[in-house]
């Protein structure tokens, strides 16, 4: 009988530990979610510095869809589905993702953009996108390079740019 009571006490204790772990985990998680990426947004140079981390071999890769209007349209669709949430519907950037219209991105080689898409920038909150098949990632790169923003350097990160063509 004593064994049964001891076991029940142990189970109650474990249940309480479980609840505490759950509450603490969710609390820490949500607080990280709201503060984790915010300071990074202030340092624009650091944001774009990741582009320089692409290895030489990756940078030199050619875009198999370069200049293909079908790929631009498909890339626009994929951008809208997977990227617009953080980078803005018009790629002008939001609090969660940098502007993709700035010259750092627009002048980057296709291979560099493909490498960023594949590897993400995990420490700054951008997930890896290798779950999209390679051709789809190239389609997104094609779309990004089709954007022709005006005065990109004068666009603030929180504002939308002057109507780049999305499709």
């Amino acid at each position, binding site marked *: 009988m004593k064994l049964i009571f001891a*076991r029940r006490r*142990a*189970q109650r204790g*474990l*249940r309480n530990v*479980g609840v505490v*772990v*759950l509450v603490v*985990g*969710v609390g820490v*998680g*949500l607080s*990280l*979610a*709201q503060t*984790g*990426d*915010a300071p990074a947004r202030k340092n624009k140079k650091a944001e774009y510095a990741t582009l320089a981390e692409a290895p030489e071999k990756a940078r030199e890769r050619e875009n198999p869809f370069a200049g293909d209007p*079908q790929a631009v*349209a*498909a*890339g626009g*669709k*994929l951008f*809208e*589905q*997977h990227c617009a*949430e953080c980078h803005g519907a018009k790629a002008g950037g939001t609090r*969660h993702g940098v502007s993709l219209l700035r010259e750092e991105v627009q002048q980057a080689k296709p291979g560099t953009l493909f490498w960023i898409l*594949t*590897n*993400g*920038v*995990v*420490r*700054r*909150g*951008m*997930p*890896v996108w*290798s*779950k*999209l*098949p*390679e*051709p*789809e990632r190239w*389609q997104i790169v094609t779309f990004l390079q089709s954007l022709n923003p005006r005065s990109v350097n004068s666009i603030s990160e929180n504002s939308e740019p002057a109507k780049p063509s999305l499709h």
Partner: protein
Amino acid sequence: MVARKVPQSILKKLRGIILLISSLLFCRASLLSAQESPYIVTYDHYLEEPGSLEVEYFSTFGTQRGGNDFDAFWTEFEYGVTAWWTTEVYLAGQTTFNDSMIFTGSRFENRFRLLQREHFVNPVLYIEFENTNAADKILKEVEGHDVESDYAPPNGVLRREHDHELEMKLLLSSTFKGWNVAVNPIVTKNLLPSEPWEFGYAIGASRPLALKASPNRCNFCRENFIAGVEMYGGLGDTQSAGLHDTSHYLAPVVAWNLPSDWTMRLSTGFGLNDNSHRLLLRWGLSREFSGLGEMVARLFGGRP
């Protein structure tokens, strides 16, 4: 029967309430299109996007020799805390035909991406705390000496046994030329000191039906479908290692990622030996939406 003491009408509303809450949540947040894998048991190395919540409902119909067939169901709330950390809560229940419907427990799971960049093999650490009873039949993982006959007793008997388990997995996953291959070794420990460490595995391979996106939005484009196969089973425990008295399953799987942000999954699992359920028919429905982190932050006075 202990199970009959709980009003069945209340229990039968459990699914409806969960679905209602899910629907309300869907209405509150902006949508994010998902590219979900078709696996139901196996995990690949892709985590939830930061700030996004994915609500999933799964159902497993299983045949049962020496007992009544069952339909086990669970809801997952999966939240991307950061790009390297995803946390998840499960609520599970089951209906055993000609018996009763009962709530079988909850699980709290965390997945941590171990490497910053993509490599040929990408490791993710999975840690889960389970607070369930023995009537839990979702078969989300098979481990140790789990066999079909464990699930045969009536719910009233099974639900008396409570399990508090810590489960760890190393999710190893690789994506190459459109194919994803994932291998998940599993270690589970019931938190009672007398219980042994149990081992299991899950392996999966999948590929989209098309690797290139079409220019137009479409429901039935081939790129929206991902097909594959997964295999899972137990590998014994520290007191009795090996494949004797273990069960194993092979399951073709398919996922349909709709442009309207829903994902549907279907899996037909076949038992590979006499210790396994003959058939596990699983389906799932999920929807991902973003903005939860900000919404909660605003509630507590955070920056908009």
